[in-house]
């Protein structure tokens, strides 16, 4: 009985590790773009009843060097760093690379009105928010 339960937990643990390793294997794709010398920023998407907020982590960036473009379905960012960052990439690459900017295009989880986007930059964090509250029609109860 104990052995069986233990096997079950081991299996769950192995799955978490498999996920972890998939994530690590895909890391270069998700965090770096060597060809364009750009880093893909860490970001977070939050959706509430009122707002959709995308927050980017942008160390080494000045406000005036951020360029944002939004459509109803996507948000693109390009931001030059105030100085290039040299990083050694692992895996089969094992070389130093210089990165000069952040670049990322995000597919938004819901349709937005890009005209009503607002962006705020504090301490290297950029928060882009859209209103998700739509004025509705009153529903009559009969």
């Amino acid at each position: 009985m104990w052995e069986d339960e233990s096997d079950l937990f081991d299996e769950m643990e192995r799955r978490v590790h498999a996920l972890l390793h998939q994530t690590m294997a895909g890391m270069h794709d998700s965090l770096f773009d060597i060809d364009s010398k750009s880093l893909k920023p860490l970001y977070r998407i939050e959706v509430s009843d009122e707002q959709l907020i995308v927050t980017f982590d942008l160390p080494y960036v000045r406000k005036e060097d951020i360029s944002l473009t939004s459509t109803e379905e996507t948000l693109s960012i390009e931001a030059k760093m105030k100085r290039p960052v040299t990083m050694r990439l692992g895996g089969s690459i094992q070389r130093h690379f210089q990165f000069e900017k952040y670049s990322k295009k995000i597919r938004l989880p819901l349709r937005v009105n890009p005209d009503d986007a607002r962006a705020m930059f504090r301490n290297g964090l950029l928060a882009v928010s859209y209103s998700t509250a739509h004025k509705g029609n009153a529903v009559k109860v009969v």
Partner: protein
Amino acid sequence: MEQTRSRVHIIEEAASGLSRPNIIVGVPEVGLVGTISASYLIQQLNLPEIAFVDSDLMPQVIVVHESVPKHPVRIYGKGDLAIVIAETPLTPRLSSEFTAELTRWARGKEAKIIIGVTGIPSRKREMSAEDKSNVFVVTNDVRLNERLKQHGTRVFEEGLMVGAYAALLANCMTAGVTSLTLLAESLQQFPDPGAAASVIEVLEKLLELKVNLKPLLDESEEIRVKSRELMSTTQAVQQGTQKPAGVYT
């Protein structure tokens, strides 16, 4: 005789000569506060590596630093200070067995205290212009609360702790080892060196350490860039397994 079937082992690489140590533990969770502060302290205090953690539950990961392969969870220390650092996120099963083994090891060393250092997610941190943040305290020795208040900390009065630090505190409570968790208000999903500096300030006063915090704050942008991969993996593991503690103030 206590029967254990631990699947985690702490392997000492050399006679450490530790004597009744204070043990600081930093593993990657909220804002990477634990790993950033442990790594900075090890470097600033020039502590030698004394042990590593071996387990079949550990992800099959070796960290290569300047061509030298290293286990991802290691212990550094000398005299009355030991620092445990993890450079890989710990899954729940591993957290639980690892903290149990660490508590046994600490008892064997007659440790004075085990101090977990980490972050607590804070929304206002994202919009604050401050480098430093508030530090909350949870301890199984209530007398410490008073002493720590003098060092500018706040008592964590209500709420849940989850994850590796909760497991550590739980094990210490069971084993009767004095334990303290320092939780700096922190960015949750982005590395937060400022929050790490805030916990180090408390440790400096509590343990009478001499640490120069200026390089940590001056190089915070570099640390944020270089810890992106660990933050991303940590986030993936945490999303798959648990939700972090919430602030109730």
